């Protein structure tokens, strides 16, 4: 686990793996503190890297879900709603042209 924590490859891991490694890093940090031993530099570096990657992946996942929901909402629209949208777009275009 220590070796995985020190040498992880952000592209190879998924969010679950990274969360597990970050949890390990926190335990490691706590143990250094409990033992009153200076924490090696890599602990902080790797934890920061992991947290940044987790946040980035979670953000990507949220954006993907938002887009999926938008597409699903579109499919739930009635023909009348779609007609109204098209009418509105047409009016905007006509206003722009004139």
């Amino acid at each position, binding site marked *: 686990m220590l070796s995985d924590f020190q040498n992880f*490859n952000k*592209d*190879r*891991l*998924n*969010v679950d793996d990274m969360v597990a490694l970050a949890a390990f890093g926190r335990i490691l940090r706590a143990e250094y503190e409990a033992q009153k031993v200076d924490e090696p530099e890599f602990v902080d570096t790797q934890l920061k890297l992991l947290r940044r990657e987790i946040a980035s*992946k979670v*953000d*990507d*996942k*949220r*954006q*993907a*879900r*938002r*887009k*999926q929901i*938008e*597409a*699903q*909402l*579109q*499919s739930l629209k009635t023909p009348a709603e779609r007609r109204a949208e098209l009418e509105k777009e047409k009016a905007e275009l006509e206003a722009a042209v004139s």
Partner: protein
Amino acid sequence: METGLTKNNILSQLSKSPHGKLVDYLAVGMTAAKQEPEFLAHLIAWDRINGQIRDAKVALPVITLAEPAFPPELRENSLAHLALLGPRELLRAFRFAGREAFGNASRMGTVRHLVRTWLREKENDRHWDRLALQHHKVLKELYSLAHARPEKDRINVVLYGRHLDKTRAPLPTGSVFEVVTHLKDMSPVGAASEIISRRIPFIVANGALGEKMKDPNVVLALIQQMSPTEVVTNTKMLEKLGVKTNPALRGAFEEALKKAASSKKNVLKTTRAAEAIDDEGLKEKLRGLQDRQLLSMGVEGNWLVLGDKSGSMARAIEIARRIAGTLAKMVKGRVWLVFFDTQPQTIDVSGAPLDAIQKATQYICANGGTSIGCGLQRMLETKEEIDGIAIVSDGGENSTPFFHHVYPQYAAFAGKEPTVYLYHCGNKSYAFTHLMQSAGIDMQVFDIDESVDFYSLPNLVSTMRTNRYSLCDEVMATKLLKLKDVFESVGKEAVAC
């Protein structure tokens, strides 16, 4: 030492990928159908669940049906496994049966009847639209080869554009077939919403969308519809469509990879796809996926991989690396990779990825004599406990200590006899196999000729066991299928034909 066509021989021969040349299975399959019919029947069932090579799933049931000596009571299992194939594979099986396996069109009645039953069954399936959407041409060809016609008017309209009374007809209004023809005229969000709500398969939408394929909304909808295999094989195309740069696409791709990790169907495709990708980030993602897939395949015990690095064995060095890399991911125990000429060079590769193994062994080059036994001798001296040994060599052992001398000493030390597998490659010599035979040491041989590529290796590795007979037991314990397990509406009429 095993002679003739044993169960292990059958397993090793049929675990290799002929890359679409089903005829390569014919000789060994026919012999197996005669000599070990019950085992072959169970192997067909086992292979459906565990096998990675689609060609074997298509060819083996056909071969058993084509062999007159194959017992009639086992034929239903073969037919049931043919019936479980998808349309494309069923068509391949039919063609293989007609052109190569049966060698006589008049004997095709059973297969033709099975295809007719399969088509009827699909006509009544509520997922028929999805099937027809993806396999329109294949279904038409199956109807034609089976000398059959659809029973339902709607199906006739979708496939042939005509009613059953042969009058012309447009695609059913509001059907998914009609929507697909209009996809390219819709707005990107509209097209995306249709793809998601109607679950239009990636391969169909890909063909119907034209330039709209480049829109992120559409790409995202397509990623959602992709099967694990499609995700892996289309990674390169997805890269061009922005899966690396667009955050939403990146998120959807990550999710798709997560789903693919639990699929055992596409391990070999992942290997190939990873090799084809230029982008290092995506390559790593696919490698990570492959690690998870290999882990789920599982092989027990501690393993020793003995790689021959004697003169002209450059290919054996690379094969040994690949086997060690695959084992390192598959096994829960430890894996040692030992390169030998007359001296061993040992590396503990437990859990190491292939690229790390390649880096650690990059300066290994082929030269020197051959002592396969020196690698095992090293394990004996360091008192390492191993359960299985994979030897990658041309088998030209010519220096002491000989493997067949060290093996009994190791077995006495460990109190067990590790299973031995030989990946026989290069300019093959049979000195080693003869020595093992005369020493009475059982060894399974995988014949690695030029046609066996690195792509097939994980499949061979996954058949290795630490108990000599456990894979055969596993195969024999796999339940045979009956047609009623596969078809809802059919009893045994297809067999009776």
